[in-house]
Structures are given as structure tokens and as C-alpha cells.
């Protein structure tokens, strides 16, 4: 897969020549400027401290401090558990909708690679990993990037859905990070698609959690910081259910990273 064409519109990307790309044989796959320009990236300095929503797009009355109304309600509901914060790269808009449709519903798996660089940056920011090697050396910190104190867990699909789609979009997004992946969760079949439900249906507490913890991985989670990865954060219900399933393994914290906040 060569990256000289846009993954979405298939036109030539015409990336400006750069010292970093000058000598590399292949450009990494990605979007062209015109497609990338139609996305709505979330500025981390202007996002909700908890769910990572772009506060600039929200009515000011729904924001207190740096926290949105939804997160206040979650905090008041007593169902937050260990779930700490979420970070997302983009707000949901028409362009993102089309990309997600191509990626998930038309099964264009390579679309996940379009966000490799951005996904890595967001991950580092989430775990407060200094990006440059030099700064880390100066501070006398770790040289290796694989921080053993973090466990990355993609949100799974049910076996049924996995067979249908052929891949798990969360796993493909996680592969972008180039770090070890722990598939610690199992998802029960037969629940209704989240994307087919409305807000109230999503927030209703399901009688039993669709996620269960794979007992074999429990020991590798204990005392670690868990990062959950998914494609979309909508109401936060899925991620909190997943967090609740992981909690018995006694992780230190649970945060999440998603491509889209919708």
C-alpha cells in the first residue's frame, strides 16, 4: 500500500517535500489536504477534561469549568467507577461520517492507517509521554517508548459481528500505536448495535454487562494503567461498561482514546 494517493478520495496527495520524507522510499498512507481539511480536529486545550469533547462546539451554558454537562451527569450517576478520562482526535461531522462509513460499514480496513500519526500523538499526550527523545534523556527518564506501566485494550466486537465485518476497527486503530495490544475483553453476542439506539436506550443500564474479562489476562492488568481504545465516543456508555468489566482485575486507572467524539 503506497501512500501517494489519498485513502479517501484516491486523488494524488501532492504532499510537500520534506527533509523527513526526502529519502524515504514510500510515503505513509494518509488523507490528502483537501479531505483532511474537512475534518474537525479537537484542540486538546479546549476540550472537556473528562470526555475530551470539543467545548468550542458546545453551548456555553452546558459547560462548568472545563467539564461538560454530560460528564457532570456521569459523575453524579455513580456509574463512573474507575473510568477516568477520554481523549478523542476529531469531532463527528459529515466528512468523518463518510470516513467511518467507508471504514466500518464498507469494510475498507486500510482507512485506519489514515490517522496513524495523529493517533500516536494523541496517545502520547494522553499518557503524558514526552515526544522527544532528547527531553527524556535530559530529565533522566526512560529511554524506551514501551512504557510497561500501560496496558492497551481495544474494545472488542462480538464473535458474530467480527465474522460479519471481518475485522475489529478498534484493533486496527490500536495497531497504529505500534505497541503491544492486550485483548483482555470478550463481548457477548446478541446485543443490539449501539449505532441503532437512541441516547436513552444507550444510557439505560443493561441487565448484564456485554463485556467480560478474559481471566487469563487479569494478572497482566493488575496495578497497571489501562488505556481503552475505540473508534467513537458517543455517550460514553460502552467505554464505561468495558471499564466496569476490567475493574475486578484491579488496574490503577482506566482512561480511553477514541478517534471520534460524536
Amino acid at each position, binding site marked *: 500500500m*503506497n501512500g501517494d494517493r489519498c485513502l479517501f478520495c484516491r486523488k494524488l496527495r501532492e504532499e510537500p517535500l520534506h527533509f523527513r520524507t526526502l529519502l524515504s522510499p514510500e510515503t505513509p498512507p494518509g488523507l490528502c489536504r483537501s479531505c483532511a481539511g474537512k475534518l474537525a480536529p479537537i484542540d486538546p486545550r479546549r476540550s472537556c477534561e473528562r470526555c475530551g469533547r470539543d467545548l468550542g462546539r458546545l453551548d456555553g451554558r452546558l459547560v462548568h469549568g472545563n467539564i461538560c454537562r454530560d460528564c457532570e451527569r456521569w459523575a453524579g450517576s455513580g456509574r463512573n467507577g474507575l473510568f477516568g478520562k477520554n481523549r478523542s482526535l476529531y469531532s463527528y461531522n459529515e466528512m468523518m461520517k463518510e470516513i467511518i462509513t467507508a471504514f466500518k460499514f464498507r*469494510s475498507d480496513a486500510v482507512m485506519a492507517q489514515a490517522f496513524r500519526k495523529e493517533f500516536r500523538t494523541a496517545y502520547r499526550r494522553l499518557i503524558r509521554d514526552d515526544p522527544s527523545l532528547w527531553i527524556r534523556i535530559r530529565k533522566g527518564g526512560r529511554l524506551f517508548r514501551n512504557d510497561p506501566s500501560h496496558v492497551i485494550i481495544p474494545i472488542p466486537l462480538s464473535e458474530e459481528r*467480527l465474522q460479519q465485518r*471481518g475485522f475489529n476497527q478498534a484493533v486496527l486503530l490500536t495497531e497504529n500505536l505500534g505497541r503491544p495490544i492486550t485483548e483482555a475483553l470478550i463481548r457477548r453476542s446478541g446485543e443490539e448495535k449501539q449505532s441503532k439506539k437512541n441516547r436513552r436506550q444507550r444510557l439505560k443500564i443493561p441487565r448484564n454487562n456485554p463485556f467480560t474479562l478474559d481471566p487469563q489476562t487479569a494478572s497482566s492488568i493488575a496495578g497497571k494503567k489501562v488505556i481503552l481504545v475505540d473508534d467513537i465516543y458517543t455517550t460514553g456508555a460502552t467505554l464505561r461498561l468495558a471499564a466496569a468489566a476490567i475493574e475486578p482485575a484491579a488496574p490503577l486507572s482506566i482512561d480511553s482514546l477514541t478517534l471520534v467524539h460524536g
Partner: protein
Amino acid sequence: MLLSRKDNLSPAYDEHLQRYLFGRECLVEELPFSEEIIKRHVRKRFITLHPGIEPATDGLMALLSGTKRWVCRRCGNTDPREFGYCSCSRCGKTCVYCRHCLNMGVVRACSRLATWSGPAPERTSLPWRDSSRICEWTGTLSDVQEKVADDLDQYQSEGKSFLIWAVCGSGKTEIMFRALEHALRLGERAVLATPRTDVVRELFPRFKAAFPKVPISALYAGSEDKDPEAPFVIATTHQLIRFYRYFDRVFIDEVDAFPYHYDPMLEYAVLKSAKEKAPIAYLTATPPPVLKSAFLSGKLPGAKIARRFHGYPLPVPKDCWAGNWRKLVGQGRLPESFNQWVRAKMESGKQIFVFVPSVTLLREVTELLQKRGLARVAGVHAEDPDRHTKVMFFREGQIRILVTTTILERGVTISGVEAAVLGADDPIFDERALVQIAGRVGRSASQPAGDVIYFHNGRTLEMIRARRHIEQMNSEGGF
């Protein structure tokens, strides 16, 4: 005892499945039948399965260089950039998939395409076969048309392909009627394929009027006139991808529009949809080089029609220098020569087509023309959601100026319209496109002439060739 006998007599295959799959090619998971039924049919060889993506077997070079190349069986895609890889959870391996035909459901290396290899289903009654006249078109063909129509039918009946090289507005559609009538009487299935939706929408009512007793199916994205059993199908080439060795006769209208779609998939789709050795009739005003040389060297039988059906010559395009049109439009102005021409045409009450090279330019030019407020102006391009309504309004005369990209260069017949190309020196306008655009003008006997003007900033070879092409056709037509 009775029961078991009955079981032996009933066909060994499911008739619904047979009807569904006959002449078509589908992904196994798309079939609305249970896995068990499908497996049983595969075992008994009523269904053949093929891998969705196969390694390409092309040449020594590919073998030596060690690059792996693939072919998508459904769409014929071989472009290595149009394949993606992902770890597949169905087959548990890294699986290659075709990105080219994704919107019809993903084809992976581990998916299987099913085709029907059992007996053909019995045709339900074909009442039109018994009526004395299937084609109820009452017009008359000119002597030239008459001869070509006979030749076409004869060659097709012998199973041979045929090229009709006819100038725009020579009545190609009516020439097809005789061969089609013959095919329908024999109970054959025929398809008329064309690359553009607009052309299907224009041809469908014409055929419907000529063959009122015959069910006709029009296939294009969003069509409502679909009939799976219809013996005659008018389809965009995209829609033929799901067919497999189904049609006995193929007519391809505007065959040369294929390369404009830069898409070998369309040719692949047409060939796949036809039965092996089915005769193909190519109809075009501007044959592509391959067909042209096959015709001229005598390998491909065919006929040339250099005269329009109304007997008047083709309008010869005029060139008009417009300065740096791109820069002017960028500054929010239109070239003065173009302005004058538009004003003159509006004052004399004409309808005009304005062809522009790109969608961005289309928006700007449309807006500039609208600002001048001479008449009702609209712009259409391929992704325009209101495309069909705008073309309809233009046809009815409510819109006086239609700005368009090359999508409307073919097949659209509107009486009394005149045409301008703004930016004819752009590489997108090659000889064939320019000839086709000139062919939009003077289509009716009442208004056989009209302006075709190429506004340019420096004459290109293609413009000169286009003019020569038209002049040569005119001289062959005896003008």
C-alpha cells in the same frame, strides 16, 4: 413410498435459488439462502464457487521482481494501489481485499463468489413473441440507416460483433431496433450498456415507446424500473458487474466513453455479463483507436454513417480566442468574447450549453453568469444531487443556460440548443470530447444548424483534430 417417489421427481435444486443466481455472480454471504442449502447445491455442482481475489498471472517481469499482483474477480481490478491488506478474522490470516468495488460489499481473498452452473430456469411466458409486431416505432429509416440496420441484424445473428461509426444525430438508437426485435422474437436476452446514467434515463422512455409490450429494465443507481426477468436491459456499465454470462446480445452505446471513466472495470463488466461468444455491437461517433484500426483493417465488420438523419451537415466548430480565461474567472470576470456570444444568444432566445473543464470552474462560471442576470442559469456536475431535475428543466426550456462538465457531452438530445466550450485548450477536452460536444448542436430537422464555439487561450492539436474530424465526416456525407 409415495413420499419418496415424489422426492425423486422434484428437481434436485431449489428453484428460488436457481432464479436468483442464474446469470448472476454474488458473494456467498449476499445470497438470501441458508448456508446449508448453498452447501448442498455446491456439492451437487449446481453452484460453482470462485475465490474473490486471485493472484495475477502476468508476465515474467512480475515473477522476477517478486511483486505480488492481484485480480479482483468481480470488478477485474488489477491496480496494486487499489488493494488493501488487513488481518482478517474470517480466515485468520492477512487477507487482501479489493478497494475498487467496495460499495458493492467487500471482496476478500477468502470470500467466495457464487455462479449458477446448473440448468437454466424455465422462462415464464413470453407473450410478445407471438405478436406480429414487437417494435411499434412508426418512424421511417433513411436508406443508409436501413442498410446498416439490416447489416447489424445479420452479423449479430451470425454471432459476429459489429461497429456502427455514425456521426452524432444520425439515428443510432433507431438502427438498433431491428436487431433488437429479432433477438426478442428468438427469446434472447439483450442488453444496451452505456457508461452514463443520463444516457440510460434518456434512452429508456424511447425504447419503452418503441417496444410497449416488452418488459424493459433500466438499471442505474437509484433506478425504479427494475425487472429481474426483463428480456431487455438498459444499464450503466457499473450495474452489469453483478451479471455473469447472461446476455445473448450486447449493444454498447458511446463505447468510447470508457476511457473517460479511466476505468477498465467497465469493459470487464460488460464482457463478463455477456455469454461467451455473444456478439457485441459497438455504437459510437468517435471510435477508440483499437476499434478504429480493427474496423479499417477489416477485422471488425461495421458501417460508417456520415450523414445526420435529417440530411444536414454537422455544425463545424469555430475557435475563438478568449485570453487567459482561467485567470479572468479567478478574478471574477468572464472573457469579453464569451460574454458577447452569450448575450447575443440570449437576445435571440436560444438555449445554450456551456462546457467547462472542472467542477470548481463550473461553480465559478455558473455564479458569474447568474450575477449577470441574463436568463436562468444552472450548473450540473456528476456529484450534483439535483442533476436529473436540472437537466429536465433545461429540456423543458425553463433553464436557458446550462453550465456543465464533460458529463453531458454525450447522448443528451435537446432540440435547438447551441454549445460553447469555455477553456477548450484544457487537456480534458480531447478530440473525442470536442467532437461529441459539437454533436449536441443541430439535432432536430427544424433547427439543423447552430453555433459550436471553442473559447480558448491558444489552439491545441486536439481542437484542430476535432475540427478536421467533423469536416471529414461532412465531406464523406457528401457536403
